[in-house]
């Protein structure tokens, strides 16, 4: 097995996911199967192949991209949304979201 029980627990902690004892074994099995399959990527020689960091880059969208309309002026505008946004929160006291105590002193 590529994945140990400790690996599963470490990843679950990083992802802030609570897992039951049963789930730990299930995910260990599943991840192991998928990662073994994914090992086929090691067959390929990727020397000198740039990782694809951007899906559509300038050559694919030539003329119109030249003037970059996606880069707009940085203008301050009204953003009066705190009411509707806070009203969707499980626990809010305007203008804050409330959470359990983080710092003890």
């Amino acid at each position, binding site marked *: 097995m590529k*994945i140990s029980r400790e*690996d*599963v627990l*470490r*990843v*679950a902690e*990083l*992802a*802030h*996911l*609570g*897992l039951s004892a049963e*789930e730990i074994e*299930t*995910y260990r099995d*599943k*991840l192991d*199967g*998928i*990662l073994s*399959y*994914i090992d*086929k*990527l*090691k*067959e*390929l020689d*990727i020397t000198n*192949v*740039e*990782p*694809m*960091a951007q*899906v*559509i880059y300038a050559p*694919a*969208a030539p003329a*119109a*991209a030249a*003037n*970059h*309309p*996606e880069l*707009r002026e940085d203008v301050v505008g009204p953003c009066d*949304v705190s009411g*509707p*946004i806070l009203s*969707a*929160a*499980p*626990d809010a006291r305007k203008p804050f*979201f409330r*959470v*359990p*105590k*983080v710092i003890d002193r």
Partner: protein
Amino acid sequence: MSAAPTWTIDGVRAALQAKKVSARELAGEFYARIERRNPELNAYLTLSPDRAYAQADRVDAAIARGDELPPLAGVPIAIKDVISTQGIRTTCASKILETYVPPYDATAVERLDRAGAVFLGKTNCDEFAMGGSNENSAYGPVRNPSDPDRVPGGSSGGSAAAVAAGLAVAALGTDTGGSIRQPGSFCGVPGLMPTYGRVSRYGLIAFASSLDKIGPLAGSVADATAVLSVIAGHDQNDSTSAPVPVPNYAVETDKPVQGLRIGVPEDYFGAGLDPEVKQKVLSGIALLERLGCRWVPLRMPHTDYAIATYYILATAEASSNLARYDGVRYGLRVPGATLTEMYRQTRERGFGPEVKCRIMLGTYALSAGYYEAYYLRAQSVRTLIARDFADAFQKVDAIITPTAPTPAFRLGEKTSDPLQMYLADIYTVTGSLAGVPGISVPCGKTKGGLPVGMQIFGSHFKEGCVLQLAQAFEQAGGSTI
């Protein structure tokens, strides 16, 4: 299936203008159909009659005044439940967003609204669009209108089933690895994945940001074209939306296909492809040849690596995007003594098994010591897959493949083995990774009566060419081949 008349976008417009029906009556007719069929199909999660009738009344008032009607006036449309709709609950088919009501419309939704569309409701899907069968919904699976014992495909299964069953004239879906095209194929309706950046993702609740696209499913290629025409175009609220002019797709689509070069990659017709599907798609290609297209044999040598690449990149992006569900700002909160305990319990309770599995895989792939071996390597293989497409489009105008290796499978058939489920995306994820547009167009049925889909890929921003071929194919009888 019921003998109710099949509405098209043109048909709605003509009936409204001739005053044979009002937009309000039409919306009512669709709600009556939904009431009859939805208990069995489970295609809709939330209906939005308040907004629909308000939209319909606006259209009826415009007709009464004799105003010129916008392009989708009165057209009843369904919206996948991962796309934000102001005032209408948007769950992503997840328990973690069970009561979430977005304060704004996605750009695609806002554009449909301005075009006069009537929003019937939100359609079921795999939780956070993660799945290929709609069985990962926290609110139960959707059933395929062609055979209720079979899946509709996924993740946009509710959108595809709603259109196929006549419960909407058109629908918005989203496609990350095949989630519009594969359910389109399974349910027998056209479904288009546009080029990455063609349609704004603003308001699309993110799964994998470098792969997510919004696109239409509809009863005909012409109707998918009409919806794309409304939702396409640059949006300053999505920095990855492309500043590329939107052509007149209706004009592009009507051009003759004579002389177009269609590439047929042998890598898509090998082991694992159902023989009946293969035969149908080869007949479909022969039909395109009879319409004057030229068959060009192709090799796309990295096809076989696409699933592995996709499941690293998509899960890595998902693990980051889904970090926002922590019980603080929206959605479910399970109380805990500490902040961390609250996060853990909220996410444990709120996410379903497949979403957890993908968050785990993505977190693992990005974690210290594994980033280069998995994520960075997959990014490089993505470049190789994109080059396969770039090389192919030096020689051809479009690439033709099956959409999925099989027709719709039975509910429960693949749920125990995630890898088998992932492999159902084998022909669609390639184009998703390359960022090119692709459509699934109905291509006959199996002897058992299950729809088969033929996939047409085009070069970046060549939706016009993809739709042109799909429409010619449809008009030449491709759907009953």
